[in-house]
């Protein structure tokens, strides 16, 4: 490594220079760090991704929780930093390289979390799970944040991905919700023949296309086949998985997806659905506010949104009640935080309060159990809550399950598969290679 003294010397010189050069109002910050030892006053740094401008619901809840918490614990100050998704992930990476993670922050599950855990940057939260929060989480959610039987973050969201459809368009063309994949293909054909884009898909973002592949893999090969292939116990060359990939391409051939889907972002594709230009849209339950309570979207449209479960494939092993989904973001506590205990307490408090308020306040389905009978919720929410309760299995999004490197290959291959730049066989080979390499 380079000589540290030199760096310091150089930078001091530069600093002096700049100070002399502008000599303006740079108020000295002092060290706003965590003076944990000084009296009882502590500051907990909290980094999240719900800006007030667009995630108003979430932001309000966060601020309320913080305010209440500070009132109950006058010695604690929670200092927030808000970034958008992309910038948040970048900053987390830069911070972790210098071992400067915030005390509390937002993380994703499984593959995202793993390197941070292996680098000893996230603190285990099993003590919280055994304490007050015992039994509060929906079964299967905290496991996504567990590595080697220790849990490293507490989930805040829980989502599944149904196929939303435009009832008005379906009615107009006398279409019915499909029960089998054959019926689904007939619907696609009818829509396409009538000049309506069947499915809105923004595959520039790649994970969007991954959902379709995952469902086909699940319905054809059953839940195990895909799970094994991802874990490395099985293979993507499994006949059923190759068939699923081929099926994706045959959907593309039948013009199932909006024009130019590989160049559209999810945001752009979604607007095709919201503007009645595409009849179906597969997406996580985080979109529910747009189909129920969001006043910016015409009521007429919101009232005509329904959903169906991905249909079963004839001869396939999959169950119609098997879903793709899982917990979204969760909260971690920095292993090297100077105020670890206070941070843990705050996270415990936060998760509980979040669970109580997030559905009604922000339309977010929390990972903690919700008593739907006491809440006034739009019908679409109630129906999906029911589906979640009946689910036979929930497969975590493939790109979240995989480690970063393999996930990138998976996502790139998805885009190539949809763009017909690779054959299903090549698609499977590349996956196996990436997953073996990651081991």
């Amino acid at each position: 490594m380079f000589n540290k003294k030199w760096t310091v010397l150089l930078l001091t010189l530069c600093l002096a220079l700049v100070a002399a050069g502008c000599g303006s109002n740079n108020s000295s910050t002092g060290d706003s760090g965590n003076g944990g030892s000084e009296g009882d006053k502590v500051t907990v740094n909290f980094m999240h991704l719900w800006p007030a401008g667009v995630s108003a619901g979430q932001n309000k809840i966060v601020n309320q929780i913080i305010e209440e918490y500070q009132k109950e614990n006058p010695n604690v100050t929670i200092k927030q930093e808000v970034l958008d998704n992309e910038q948040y992930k970048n900053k987390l990476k830069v911070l972790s390289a210098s071992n400067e993670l915030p005390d509390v922050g937002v993380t994703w599950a499984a593959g995202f979390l793993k390197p941070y855990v292996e680098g000893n940057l996230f603190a285990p939260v099993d003590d919280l799970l055994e304490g007050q929060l015992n039994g509060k989480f929906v079964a299967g959610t905290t496991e996504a944040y567990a590595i080697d039987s220790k849990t490293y973050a507490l989930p805040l969201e829980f989502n599944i991905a149904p196929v939303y459809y435009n009832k008005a368009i379906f009615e107009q063309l006398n279409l019915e919700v499909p029960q089998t994949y054959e019926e689904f293909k007939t619907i696609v054909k009818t829509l396409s023949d009538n000049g309506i884009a069947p499915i809105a898909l923004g595959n520039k973002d790649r994970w969007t296309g991954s959902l379709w592949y995952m469902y086909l893999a699940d319905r054809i090969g059953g839940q195990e086949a895909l799970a094994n292939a991802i874990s490395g116990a099985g293979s993507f060359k499994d006949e059923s998985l190759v068939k699923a990939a081929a099926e994706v391409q045959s959907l593309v051939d039948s013009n199932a997806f909006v024009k130019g889907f590989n160049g559209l972002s999810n945001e752009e594709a979604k607007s095709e659905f919201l503007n009645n230009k595409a009849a179906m849209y597969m997406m996580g339950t985080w979109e529910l506010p747009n189909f129920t309570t969001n006043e910016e979207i015409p009521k007429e449209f919101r009232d005509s949104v329904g959903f169906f479960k991905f249909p079963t494939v004839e001869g396939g092993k999959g169950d119609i009640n098997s879903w793709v989904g899982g917990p979204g973001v969760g909260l971690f506590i920095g292993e090297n935080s100077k105020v670890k205990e206070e941070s843990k307490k705050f996270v415990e408090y936060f998760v509980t309060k979040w669970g109580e308020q997030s559905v009604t306040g922000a339309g977010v389905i929390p990972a903690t159990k919700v008593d739907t009978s006491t809440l006034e919720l739009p019908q679409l929410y109630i129906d999906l809550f029911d589906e979640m309760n009946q689910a036979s299995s929930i497969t975590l999004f493939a790109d979240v399950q995989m480690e970063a490197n393999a996930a990138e290959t998976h996502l790139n291959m998805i885009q190539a598969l949809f763009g017909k730049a690779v054959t299903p066989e090549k698609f499977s080979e590349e996956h196996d290679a990436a997953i073996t390499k990651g081991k």
Partner: protein
Amino acid sequence: MDKVMSNKKIIALYVLPALLVIMAVVYIPIILTAYYGLNEWNGIGAMTFIGLDNYQALLTDGKFWDSAWHSLLLAVFSAASLIIYLAVAMVLASKIKGANLFRKIYLIPMLLSSVAIAQLWLRIYHPTNGIVNSFLESIGISNPPAWLAEPSLVLFALFIPILWQYAGFYILIYYAALKNIPASLVEAAKIDGATSMQIAFRIKLPLIMEVIKVTIVLAVVGSLKYFDLIFVMTDGGPNGSSEVMASYMYHTAFRAYDFGYGSAIGFFLLVICLIVTWVIRKLTASKETIQYS
């Protein structure tokens, strides 16, 4: 004269401040980047020293060379489009009526941030209701291509906004250079009966040759490490057909968590820039420098 102009203390005083800033803020990171490139590192845990393995892998990495090819294409296009910018600047710098107003208007797009430019061009290229395809359909072309989803077209579709984005920058530089030519030189030529074309090619161009050389280097180096619009508009897709070196570096380091390899790409990019710059300087080298006199 020479004695005064080679006073070491004054030279140090003039050069060192900037040099120190550059050393601390750019060179240490460059050296560290080169060093990270010698390691296997996900950016989080401990590094494992692996010597030149990353650089070796890079040499046979087809994806990297594809991205390098795309960057190089962009560089060629950028350098070629300098001719257009120069022509526009010449017109604006001439004494036509309203030149001042035109100049201001022409440079306005360069004030926009990449975020705005990317959004604008995404709307222009939208496959169904974008301006380009609406126009093509209205003149009877059915089923025009989805520009940003077509692997064979996407790179060229991206070049247009990138070249447009930088037009203002180069026009501004050329304009200032042309305006800096003493009017007396041009007047003298006019009295000698030179046409405006002759003045442009025989007097103005040679006089701003140094500036032109500089802009060639700027355009090429800038293109080789270009990132902004591509990242927002296509994210290197579809299937990597618009991936450039800097976006490949970003994807490797920040998405795939392979910071060692990503750093190797970053450092290699610098080496490529160096080689290309050296070649350009050799090609454009001239013995004499022309001064206004």
